[in-house]
């Protein structure tokens, strides 16, 4: 049930994200009316501080935010799981070096790390993606390495090694398919942490470039209204929360599906 709900939500979000220009009543950056207009037929969710249509911003925000979060999460998983598996499969000094590098990166507070990098290189989208990717990849590395360690000791990996298979095969065909479940579970959480990280960065003034709309920055921009009992900031925040819950429902279901059946014997 909850999985169906999750899939439905993700589906709707994807449609909204893909077809944003066709769905949104107004343009992403179009300045239409006065600041903070109330909800009306003309502006279903009112306008933001610059008089842009909130609904349209939300819809385009879906596109930017999901696109950004998805690409960062995917990149982080590529980088993190690959290096994690290499560390587990090769062991020895390769493992030591990779693990120590990750240790170092993880011991630097991530916000500070991002602050440093983004201040040095500027907050263009590629650097934003690269920075968060690296930070996220360290967490993925730990998980991938730990789970891959359990797989590496399996006889079928030994079979492949004794056959004389190269590292690439061992990782791709023997290890990866067997650690997808925990990686997937982490994917769900990481995905939502990316939103949060972007919004935390925009709290420190290092988020996405304006006038592009993204939910994280939208939450930040309107957050102060919440203490005056205005629900505007709840919209983007709620959108993030709903997506997070939905994605995790799906992940939980996938996990349950892949592990649940093994219980029966």
């Amino acid at each position, binding site marked *: 049930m909850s999985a169906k709900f999750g899939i439905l939500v993700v589906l709707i979000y994807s449609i909204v994200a893909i077809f944003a220009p066709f769905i949104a009543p107004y343009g992403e950056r179009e300045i239409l009316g006065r600041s903070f207009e109330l909800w009306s037929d003309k502006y279903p969710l009112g306008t933001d501080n610059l008089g842009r249509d909130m609904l349209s911003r939300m819809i385009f925000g879906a596109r930017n935010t999901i696109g950004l979060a998805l690409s960062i999460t995917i990149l982080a998983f590529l980088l993190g799981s690959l290096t994690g598996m290499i560390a587990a499969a090769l062991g020895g000094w390769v493992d030591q070096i990779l693990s120590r590098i990750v240790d170092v990166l993880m011991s630097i507070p991530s916000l500070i790390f991002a602050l440093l990098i983004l201040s040095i290189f500027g907050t263009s989208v590629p650097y934003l993606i690269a920075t968060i990717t690296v930070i996220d990849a360290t967490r993925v590395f730990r998980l991938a390495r730990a789970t891959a360690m359990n797989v590496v000791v399996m006889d*079928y990996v030994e079979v492949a*090694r*004794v056959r004389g298979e190269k590292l690439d095969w061992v990782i791709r*065909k023997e290890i990866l398919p067997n650690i997808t479940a925990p990686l997937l579970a982490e994917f769900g959480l990481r995905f939502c942490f990316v939103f949060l990280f972007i919004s935390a960065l925009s709290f420190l003034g290092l988020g996405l470039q304006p006038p592009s709309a993204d939910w994280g920055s939208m939450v930040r921009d309107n957050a102060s209204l919440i203490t005056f009992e205005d629900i505007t900031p709840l919209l983007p925040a709620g959108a993030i929360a709903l997506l997070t819950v939905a994605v995790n429902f799906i992940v939980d279901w996938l996990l349950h599906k892949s592990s649940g059946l093994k219980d029966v014997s």
Partner: protein
Amino acid sequence: MLADAKKNSESESSATLLEVKGLRIEGLSEKGWQEIVCGVDLKLKRGEILGLIGESGAGKSTIGLAAMGFARDGCRITSGEIIFDGIELCTASEEQKRKLRGNRISYVAQSAAAAFNPAHRLLDQFAEGPVDHKIMSRTEAKEKGRQLYRSLDLPDPDNIGERWPHQVSGGQLQRMMVAMAMSCGPDLIVFDEPTTALDVTTQIEVLKTIKEIVTARNVSAIYITHDLAVVAQLADHLMVLRYGNLIEVNSTGQILEAPKQEYTRALLNARTRHEQTTVQISDAETLLSINSVTAGYGNGLDILQEISVSVERGRTVAVVGESGSGKSTLARVITGLLPPRSGEIHFQSESLPPALAQRSKQQLQKVQMIYQLPDVALNPRQRVRDIVGRPLSFYLGLSGKKREHRIIELLEHIELSEHYIDRLPDELSGGEKQRICIARALAAEPELIICDEVTSALDTIVAKAILDLLQRLQRELSLTYLFISHDLDTVASIADQVVVLYAGRIAEQGPKTAVFQPPFHPYTRLLLSSVPEMRQGWLEETLSTHEAKAGIAREVKITERGCPFAERCPVAIPEICVRDRPPLQTPASGHVFACQHAPEMLLDHFA
């Protein structure tokens, strides 16, 4: 209701303790709920032992657990009655059943290593049941535990309970679990394959304990196993199960002497030793020769010490020994996974580089291996096509139609239809998985196949079929096997040459006929006498022998000097055996054994 139950138990105290009527249980699989126990009836009187026999998937464990009113996650009891001492367990509340479990009905699991919580001391786990069921105080419970340990001849009974599960050997742990099952003084114990995972020598030790407990304390028991020979030593009645159906019920004697059903006969047959004469090849080429190899892990002890073995083309060399004797280490040395500390390995008179990474593809192709546990030897995410097809494309460069064709051919070799090509390992039975492993090894077109305990995780009937298959393949494809096993029965049926390994050293080595006939090395003798025989009374006889008393219930220990078997040896010469390396003797050509005694002396000893 309660009064009724009480009356029942009084009036029928000598009669039925447990009655199961029309029990049906379903299990959840990918295809939904499916019946795994299809209407089983059973009756158990007080003091009686009932054996439940069948292969895996027969529903034995499910029935055994149902007798406790318990269904595993993903299982459900759909109909039938389970009446334990007048209490209907199917309708009883969870709380009621909880009060019975561990208290009046207890359970002994297959693997004590897995069934003891690694985080608690053994005696605490013993005491937990009686304390939680409010039968006795913690101190009383612990005292009772120590008494039981003492009466079961466990070593250091006063302190062994203070140890952690991992600090106790497998056999002792299994016995302590039997003791734990007795902690509340139950009416019924369910034994779920309690010796299956053990070495033959250890198995005797556990069987002895069970026998003592059950007979001496007049407890009823359900004994679940796939090994008829084992249960024959204990049970009064046997029930043969297959695919959740009852095949045959009868007294043990009747089943052994005059089985009525075909399937029961097959079960009996699988345990009957059949000596097979192998094809004699004259002037056989030496395929593999291992020259005084010494090996070990990290900085630890030498697990293997100066091992020399040679394998001739088309023959089967069996390496025998208990767990810890270094058999699997030998396999790892040959495959290059563990480079030896000293010594050399030649293959077809060519020296094999010690480490895997240094070996060429051709060298790797020539030696293939089949593992003990097909479950972990097959990647659960790969289909049969990929598993079997990979060596074809990797070593032989086959692809497309040719590869597909060859895979089907290999499947035919291992007696599986081509429909199996798209299956995942999870969709295969244990025997089928092992066949796929064989096909994978064959696909590489190797010269030598190392079989590492390939049958010990399988049911007897399935194991026999696998052995038959291996032998057929050897005849048809003139394969060479290095066969590693702890089961002398298996070895006897397949080997040409036998190497008996003890604590990393060769105890005896030679043609099967020479090794399995007197004069015996004392260790060989112990192993042989521990193999259960398909007749009642075997256990008592064996336990009374000299070597069993000395040899069982001990662990394999690697020693720096002397004969490692000395402390278990019934004929050990004090001081000398512990101090000096036993000399190698060759009573006949190709037959070597390491013992202080001369062959003639041993002949006398074991006469």
